[in-house]
């Protein structure tokens, strides 16, 4: 190891230098450690969101059930969606992007390592802030603008989980005015609005960071059209975030002002327009859908070629289709509002725009099929998940086309048909893709392989459970089961299918348990992966497993798409891959150089300030919620002071400590044992 540890300098604090233990994680600016932290946090929220879903499913397994109170039910579906979207899939994608983008483009880190740490800590504190609503939040019966208030029953009784009702219950879409000050009084929706504001800030910072990283930090010869598709999809996602987060930020500011400071942006009683909220929300919310799916598409585009032993079919078509999806994604938001009374012209226009998205999506699917066609398909666990992704995402895409037929959407919208559609896209799509990635890159993280028997058990359980859960929802929706419904009448005939759905949900839960066991077991007892366990194509596999702290022993120079593959393989006259005679030798050299960098490598030093700065935001935002009290005001000031201190410290601290090559003086000191 020739990573040079430099003498830390003191600005506000002594610069941290721990390489092990808790402080190394709290102060790290290493994109890999940050990625891992994102991953674990996201997975924890996945478990929480999943448990919420199971509670919802138990309630719905029976007509007119009393398992949950209405308040608890509404809170749970709000938090389930908010958690899965903002606290699971987005950070899980961020985990992959953090870990992989620098490796895939041949960089030592992202462009702004400390900003990267800041993003992570802001996200983490934002998640904690949002979930602290379970402890501090309140939610009470609606109070109409005329001052008459609704009434709650005396109490839910045991087993009703009524304590959950004190959390955000306006839906993840927070339609106004229902989620506004009159109809959702109490602080719970404030936690929601401000929590999302914090998390959005994290995404925005990440987006800037990734864009600059991808445009500026590529290794020599890594032209844009030589980047792996995952990096391309991350680029599109970063731009989607860049342009959509500010919109939701403004919308959330307006809601917060409505709720806290008596403005009237969305209150019809004062002339506010609830449809404005929908426009702003979906103007963000629809790009958000692609923010959730594109990283998974990127992962699948990496996994399929490796296990088909063929290059990605139509690389540039897949890249451009991804960019087209991102671009068109900004032009279709009002298809979420087709029943809201917008003009027929708008309905037709947005319906047609939505249909056009099917074209680039189709291009991707057909190219993936083209990749598999004629290949030598190794059905490993990541490959199973990737193929599962294509199949399930196709179903989700096709049901999506049925919504684009506007009049048919008037029947489907706000029913379980939509719930089915979005889960086929986000679970059958994103989550399957993410699992493919976890199995595929596990050796990269740990140097071990995941157990493939358990992996396949996980896949089949999840695949079957998923379909049992979500396929019947299509049917339920068309039979008239509306979304977000706490109870349904027995006469509707919906009960039998709901029982099936609930059974499926528990099968999914079981499959996740298998995965968790596999993960932690393989981390300790997994088979050693060695170098390049999958015979892969992309740059991240051209370095040892687990990834060294400095990524590349020497910065690579790229001459082709799938550079690493071409180091190992030639083509014969028929175009078949032929392993080079010296392939093993090249790999051995790569491994050697990867483990023993020929020159010292300077890495960005750890820093306290991202953590400190991120800590300022929740403090300020708690203060805003309780701004009418003295301690609320005090919290705003304290939070601002904390953030300001961090800004000053940050500004005074260089990214890398000055590293005059170990001077003779110092060398003598070392020799003298000083």
């Amino acid at each position, binding site marked *: 190891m020739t990573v040079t540890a430099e003498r830390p300098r003191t600005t506000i604090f002594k610069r941290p230098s721990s390489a092990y233990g808790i402080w190394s994680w709290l102060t790290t600016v290493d994109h890999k450690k940050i990625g891992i932290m994102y991953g674990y946090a996201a997975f924890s929220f996945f478990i929480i969101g999943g448990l919420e879903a199971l509670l919802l499913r138990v309630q719905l397994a029976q007509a007119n059930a009393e398992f949950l109170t209405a308040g608890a039910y509404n809170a749970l579906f709000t938090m389930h969606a908010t958690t899965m979207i903002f606290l699971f899939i987005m950070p899980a994608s961020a985990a992959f992007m953090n870990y992989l983008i620098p490796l895939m483009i041949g960089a030592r880190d992202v462009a702004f390592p400390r900003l990267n740490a800041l993003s992570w800590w802001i996200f983490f504190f934002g998640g904690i802030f949002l979930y602290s609503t379970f402890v501090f939040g309140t939610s009470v019966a609606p109070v109409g603008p005329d001052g008459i208030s609704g009434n709650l029953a005396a109490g839910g009784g045991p087993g009703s989980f009524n304590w959950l009702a004190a959390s955000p219950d306006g839906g993840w879409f927070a339609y106004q005015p229902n989620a506004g000050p009159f109809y959702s009084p109490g602080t719970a929706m404030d936690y929601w609005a401000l929590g999302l504001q914090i998390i959005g800030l994290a995404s925005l910072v990440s987006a800037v960071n990734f864009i600059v990283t991808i445009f500026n930090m590529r290794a020599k010869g890594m032209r844009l059209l030589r980047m792996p598709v995952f990096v391309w999809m991350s680029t599109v996602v970063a731009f989607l975030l860049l342009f959509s987060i500010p919109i939701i930020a403004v919308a959330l500011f307006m809601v917060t002002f409505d709720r806290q400071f008596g403005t009237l942006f969305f209150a019809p009683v*004062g002339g506010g327009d609830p449809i404005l909220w929908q426009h702003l929300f979906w103007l963000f919310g629809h790009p958000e859908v692609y923010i959730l799916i594109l990283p998974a598409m990127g992962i699948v585009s990496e996994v399929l070629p490796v296990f088909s032993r063929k290059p990605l079919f139509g690389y540039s078509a897949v890249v451009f289709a991804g960019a087209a999806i991102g671009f068109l994604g900004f032009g279709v938001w009002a298809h979420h509002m087709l029943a809201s009374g917008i003009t027929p012209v708008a309905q037709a226009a947005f319906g047609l725009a939505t249909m056009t998205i099917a074209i680039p999506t189709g291009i991707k699917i057909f190219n993936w099929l083209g990749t598999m066609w004629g290949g030598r398909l190794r059905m490993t666990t990541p490959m199973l998940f990737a193929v599962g992704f294509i199949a399930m995402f196709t179903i989700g895409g096709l049901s999506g086309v049925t919504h684009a037929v506007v009049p048919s959407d008037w029947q489907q919208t706000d029913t379980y048909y939509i719930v089915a559609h979005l889960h086929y896209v986000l679970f059958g799509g994103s989550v399957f893709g993410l699992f493919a990635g976890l199995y595929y890159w596990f050796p990269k993280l740990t140097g071990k392989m995941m157990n493939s028997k358990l992996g396949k058990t996980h896949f089949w359980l999840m695949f079957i459970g998923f379909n049992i859960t979500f396929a019947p929802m299509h049917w339920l929706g068309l039979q008239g089961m509306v979304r977000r419904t706490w109870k349904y009448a027995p006469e509707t005939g919906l009960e039998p299918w709901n029982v099936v759905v609930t059974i499926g949900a528990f099968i999914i839960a079981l499959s996740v348990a298998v995965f968790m066991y596999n993960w932690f077991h393989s981390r300790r007892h997994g088979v050693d992966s060695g170098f390049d366990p999958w015979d892969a194509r992309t740059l991240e596999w051209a370095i040892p497993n687990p990834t060294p702290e400095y990524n590349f022993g020497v910065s690579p120079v790229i001459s082709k798409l799938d550079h690493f593959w071409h180091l190992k393989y030639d083509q014969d006259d028929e175009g078949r891959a032929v392993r080079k005679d010296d392939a093993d030798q090249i790999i051995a050299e790569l491994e050697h150089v990867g483990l023993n960098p020929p020159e010292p490598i300077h890495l960005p030093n750890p820093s306290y300030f991202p953590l400190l700065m991120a800590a300022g935001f929740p403090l300020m935002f708690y203060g805003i919620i309780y701004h009418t009290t003295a301690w609320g005001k005090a919290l705003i000031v304290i939070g601002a002071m904390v953030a300001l201190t961090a800004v000053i410290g940050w500004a005074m601290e260089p*990214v890398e400590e000055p590293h005059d090559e170990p001077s003779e003086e110092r060398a003598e000191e070392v020799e003298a044992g000083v």
Partner: protein
Amino acid sequence: MSDVVHETPVAHHDEHESTGIGNRKLGMWVFLSSEFMFFGALIATYLLYSNRGGFEGTYPSEIYDIPFTSVSSFVLLMSSLTMVLAHNALSKGDQNGTRTWLFATAALGAVFLGGQVFEFTEFIVQSDMTLSTNPAASAFYLLTGFHGTHVAVGVIMLLSLWGISRRKGGLSEEHGMNLELVGLYWHFVDIIWIVIFTVVYLLSVPSA
């Protein structure tokens, strides 16, 4: 090791810049492009409500003081000039000029902010138009308030740079990049005000 050619011997992480533009400068441009969406949403909201009739209370467009706002808009516009002169002076190594123009920029920004405080006070006290009078008023205060916050942040950054420039040796080359970034930000805040001044002030007053 045929294809894997060594690059530079000592590898700093912050080294290659494929686009030829520094990371921080590129980052600033990227961030500013995103700010369009932010102010766009606020301006759109204002336009929606200022054009909607039937609200109770005063509309902001009824009480604009166009001559006053014209002057403060002009002040902000001219601060872009002083900003660019500060940048120019530093690039020529003229520390004195940099210092002067930096201070002038911050001062003009502060005058603009003072004008905004005065305007808000007038609206609230004289015309009884508060944040919660009607959606048009809410949108006006939120939009101009967020713009003002951006200006205030800019003034603080300018004053910090000015403070550093007063130290011995003035602004280093690294600070030069900071100055350029603050400059980009400052000009951006100015162009947003160009739009606000026209769309929100001049165009939303109902013609007689």
